[in-house]
């Protein structure tokens, strides 16, 4: 505070008057867009190479690292491989709730996650125990796992990764290299049976659908 009462206020007002004429800091948005820093990492994007194929190697590292699990491997590309799938931002919240639910140890009602769940890992633990949790014996572990479960469930791979310390990408690479290892249940028939068991109303629905299609010209039912 200055000696003369009110002089400080006058100085402040002089400052604001000077700022009145100074250049302004506003970025006029629709005309001028703020530049995005080169390191900006605000949005997930899958890149394609010059032949139009996906550059993603489906190593699952992004899905594993994502803290709120909004990234998921799902869907199929044209070559029948997995590719990264992510929802619009609004679904992150739902993903987050699902994530919390799953971490609490309870089954998640969302069918997108059923293949991660419901796996009895006691057999897998036995296998891992017999191989001494050694990532060097990955191929025998995977073969034994397939022998135990019929195929290699994603949850099993994740568990192997967590217990042995090997990267998921390594395990996935090993598993996908050998033709005798498979990621789906062995036969279509069994899969269909499982589907039917899960949704018993399907048969009725298909029958009804066939009946409704039968009456239409061009219908092949």
């Amino acid at each position, binding site marked *: *505070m*200055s000696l003369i*009462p*009110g*002089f*400080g*206020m006058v*100085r*402040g007002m002089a*400052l*604001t008057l000077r*700022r009145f004429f100074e250049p302004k*800091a506003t970025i006029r948005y629709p005309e001028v867009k703020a530049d995005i*820093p*080169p*390191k*900006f*990492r*605000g949005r997930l994007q899958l890149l394609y190479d010059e032949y139009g194929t996906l550059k993603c190697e489906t190593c699952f590292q992004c899905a594993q*690292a994502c*803290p709120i699990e909004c990234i998921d491997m799902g869907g199929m590309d044209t070559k029948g491989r997995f590719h990264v799938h992510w929802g619009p931002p609004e679904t992150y919240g739902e993903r987050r709730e699902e994530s*919390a639910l799953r*971490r609490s140890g309870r089954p998640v009602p969302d069918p997108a996650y059923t293949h991660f769940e419901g796996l009895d890992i006691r057999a897998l633990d036995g296998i891992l125990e017999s191989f001494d949790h050694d990532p060097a014996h990955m191929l025998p572990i995977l073969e034994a796992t397939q022998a135990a479960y019929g195929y290699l469930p994603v949850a099993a791979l994740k568990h192997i990764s*967590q217990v042995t*310390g090997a*990267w998921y990408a390594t395990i996935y690479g090993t598993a996908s290299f050998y033709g005798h290892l498979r990621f789906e249940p062995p036969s279509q028939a069994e899969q269909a049976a499982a589907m039917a068991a899960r949704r018993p109303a399907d048969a009725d629905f298909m029958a009804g659908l066939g009946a409704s299609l039968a009456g239409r010209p061009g219908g092949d039912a």
Partner: protein
Amino acid sequence: MTAPSRTGPQPSADDPRVMLDRDIGVFEPVPPYPPRTEREAEFYTLGDGQMLLNMGPQHPSTHGVLRVVLKLDGEKVVDLDPVLGYLHRGVEKLCENADYHQVISQVDPLEYISSLFCEWSPVIAFEKLLDVDVPRRAEYIRVLSGELNRIASHALFMGWFALDLGGLTPILWSFIERDEIVEMLAALTGQRMLFNYFRIGGVNGDLNHEFMSRLGDWMSRATKQIESNLTLLNQNEIFVRRARGLGVIDTAGALRMCMTGPNLRATGVPFDVRRAHPYSVYPELDFDVPTRTEGDSLARYLLRMEEIKQSIRIIDQCLHQMPDGPIMAKLPRLLRPRPGRAYAAIEGPRGQYSTYAISDGTDQPFRMRIHDPSFIHLQSVGVLMQNNLIADTMAIMASLDPVMGGVDK
């Protein structure tokens, strides 16, 4: 309709019944259940001529979604009861379910004004658990970016404090200050607000050209610009008369209230974790710990402005002493520290942030406790608010500089 039943399942304070009670017709901030503690009973018992005033959670100057119930005698605030939890997201539980790397992005939004400090203390705690040595260049980069973030936070504090005292202009000037720093940090870290930059064992990226050019540009005029902004308030009679002698607390009281940071230093205690319990490369840097003895809002304000200057000094030294070398320690992708406990505290712009982490040998923390200075300082509002007016509630709260993201965790 009948009066709310006092037995049976007790409704929550958010219960629509309180608002739908046509007999009252107005929302009274009295909880619809019998008082549970001594303090609650005392607070919600009104004396002669007293009334309750519900402030928030949407009040414009509660710095986020804080609800404060004021007990008034005229314009005089007799007592107040902050109600928290509107921003609570259970970050400690989230951290217990995330692996060590993921924790960093979980704690980032705690104090969204100064995110780097929220990352810093968990990172140090995990490094202690893992016995990792951080490369010196990474430490210097951490200090450099951290001090920049401290300036950004303090600059914004000036604006908020003036806004709560009724000044319109400083908040925009301080946002301009902050924006320059935030742009700089965006060039360094890739994000403007939730930087997610520190990593266990180092930092995410090295210094780059854009960051350095922006920083050099800013350093050449920072001091002058901040001084110029400060003339608006520091010499203003209205501002000084309002802030002086407002919310006074003495040293013993501040220690009793567990205050840290600028709020404690304003009472005369030179406690700064950077000096009192050094971490990172702060022992190698030359800076002062400013203190003041008044313990009022003006002292807290002036102290923060003084700290901006010290931070500029530190940044200058960091730029001159920046060593070459790696910015990350060699660490496996999946971290499994030995079972143990670690505690790490750092000096943030609001005070001491600390993390207490317990490892049980798995890749996720067994328990992760985050101690946030805003939380501690907010509870001392009730102590500072002895027979002040409503207008001072905001000013005192602003002078403590709480961020509700950190308070509610």
